[in-house]
């Protein structure tokens, strides 16, 4: 094994020549993220509605999602690949699995967080059930839901990098390629590029969601510093919405 020569850390020339590779990786990374968060959101919404209708199911559902979340990504891939083979399928399954817990918790917390007097007043004024859900419950649940989406998206962007090991691309592929080329000068470039771009994408989406949150909830106040909680089915009151990358 040859040691890395003392070349430049980042080979800008190489980057300039391979912009198409980078673009392809970006697109792939975005696609995977979008699919995973999209499916995860739909699934979590369904689970949340179930949990709200049948309260007893919530600890079960949340517990299941929590176990799923605790399994290391590489290990989860390892368990799925023998069943599904390599490629998009195990990747999406695993990525979706990781979004479920935070989304389920936040959706449920959001809808439960609608104050009872507000609901009663809405009913008393003559809102039909569906109209109340759409005009009152959902808008008020929105901050929590958007916060959940934000965390899920940022987390997923990070996890997509590991899908390189089930044969997919995205920025993880750049990193993996960089690790493979231990000697070549581009090795460090690739690794830094892959990691850096992933961080940039995460930050961009984080800011995007913060913006969406501010636009969608003109009446709400900023969330404050919250300690990190393990992702387990704690009582819904204890949702760490978390600060944002752009928070002061």
């Amino acid at each position: 094994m040859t040691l890395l020569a003392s070349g430049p850390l980042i080979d800008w020339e190489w980057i300039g020549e391979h912009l198409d590779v980078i673009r392809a990786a970006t697109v792939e990374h975005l696609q995977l993220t979008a699919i995973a968060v999209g499916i995860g959101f739909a699934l979590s919404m369904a689970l949340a509605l179930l949990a709200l209708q049948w309260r007893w199911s919530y600890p079960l559902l949340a517990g299941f999602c929590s176990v799923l979340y605790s399994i290391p990504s590489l290990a989860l891939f390892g368990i799925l690949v023998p069943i599904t083979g390599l490629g998009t399928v195990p990747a999406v399954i695993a990525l979706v699995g990781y979004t479920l817990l935070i989304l389920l918790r936040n959706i449920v917390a959001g809808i439960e967080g609608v104050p009872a007097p507000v609901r009663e007043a809405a009913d008393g004024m003559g809102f039909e059930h569906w109209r109340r859900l759409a005009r009152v419950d959902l808008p008020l649940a929105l901050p929590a839901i958007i916060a959940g989406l934000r965390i899920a998206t940022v987390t997923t962007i990070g996890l997509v990098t590991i899908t390189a090991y089930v044969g997919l691309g995205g920025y993880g592929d750049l990193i993996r390629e960089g690790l493979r080329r231990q000697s070549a000068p581009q090795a460090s470039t690739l690794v830094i590029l892959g990691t850096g771009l992933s961080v940039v994408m995460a930050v961009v989406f984080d800011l995007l969601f913060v913006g969406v949150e501010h636009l969608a909830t003109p009446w709400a106040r900023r969330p404050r510093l919250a300690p990190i909680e393990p992702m387990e089915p704690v009582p819904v009151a204890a949702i760490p919405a978390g600060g944002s990358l752009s928070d002061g």
Partner: protein
Amino acid sequence: MSDAAPAVADEADASPASGEPAPDVAIRLETLTKRYPGSAVPAVDHLDLTIPRGELVALVGPSGCGKTTTLKMINRLVEPTEGTVWIEGTDARTLPAHQLRRGIGYVIQQAGLFPHRTVADNIATVPKLLGWSRERVHERVDELAELLGLDADLLPRYPAALSGGQQQRVGVARALAADPPVLLMDEPYSAVDPIVRARLQDELVRLQRQVHKTIVLVTHDIDEAIKLADRIAILRAGGHLEQVGPPEELLRAPTSEFVADFLGDDRGIKRLSLITVDDVALREGPVVGMTDSPATARAVMADQGVDWVGVRDGDRLLGWVGAADLDGEPTLATAPRRPFRAVFTPGTTLKAALDGIVTSQTRVAVIEDDQRYLGMLTLDDLAEGVTEGSGEPLEAVGEDAP
């Protein structure tokens, strides 16, 4: 003893939908019952009650008496197990619930304002549901803001920025927005502090004089009921109607031990809050002119059996002079004079006057109108006024009116 109901049917008020004439009865509760599964005793047990149009009827009783449940059966937030709610002659069940509720104003304890809508949007909620035009809605919001005493610059703000009292006002405005004939209020003032509560109650009284809504108000506070209601219905556990009638009647002649207890052992004094000074005959009292001599003053004191005398100058009552202060004074004008502490206007309640009498040194309440002396009241005058003013003396529990 439920309220006898209707007068002669008035054709103009007949409801076409049911053919049942509904003259001055806005709401009628007929054998209304609510049974919850798992509970042996019904929450509301065959309640019969009539709510006359344009009146404020208070449902009062201890916790668990079913007053809130009853209220909620009117707008069907709770569905009755048995019995019927007739609103303007129509069975409340014939309409879809949400439609029924758009025609009934609903005010709750914590206001329940939509945090995600501005104050103006909150008020505009039902009109928008009913499809009013934007201009009409806008006009109505402004109208209500003025009616409820809400500052115009509160309208574009969010409820979180308002004080508790302001929020309650918005809640009432919102309930009145579509001009419903009926207003339901569930302990609307229990969550605000006493000073704000008193103001809001006064505003409601004033409002009611202007809009004449049919209001059903639930409260556990008998004093609030006495202050606000035209008619009070006292309920016992299980929604049993103990007595219903105007506050004055209940206070004077409670029909059961329960009602008497609920009204409190200061029933007599509570009645005083229902009568004002102008209903009572005033007396001149021991008053002399400023130019009169001290001897005259002493004579008046002796004559009326008091140790002080009031001093007037034309129309104005200047103050009072004690017997001891007269000693050695050549004229009345030089004697040290003290101001009357208990001074009231004709619109004051007898209860306030009583408070003044009891706490003043002179044991009288002075009544003035714009600094013009009208007369004074003593304890005896009050007692007489209570019996004369409203016709009958206080009765012991269960006695029939003479």
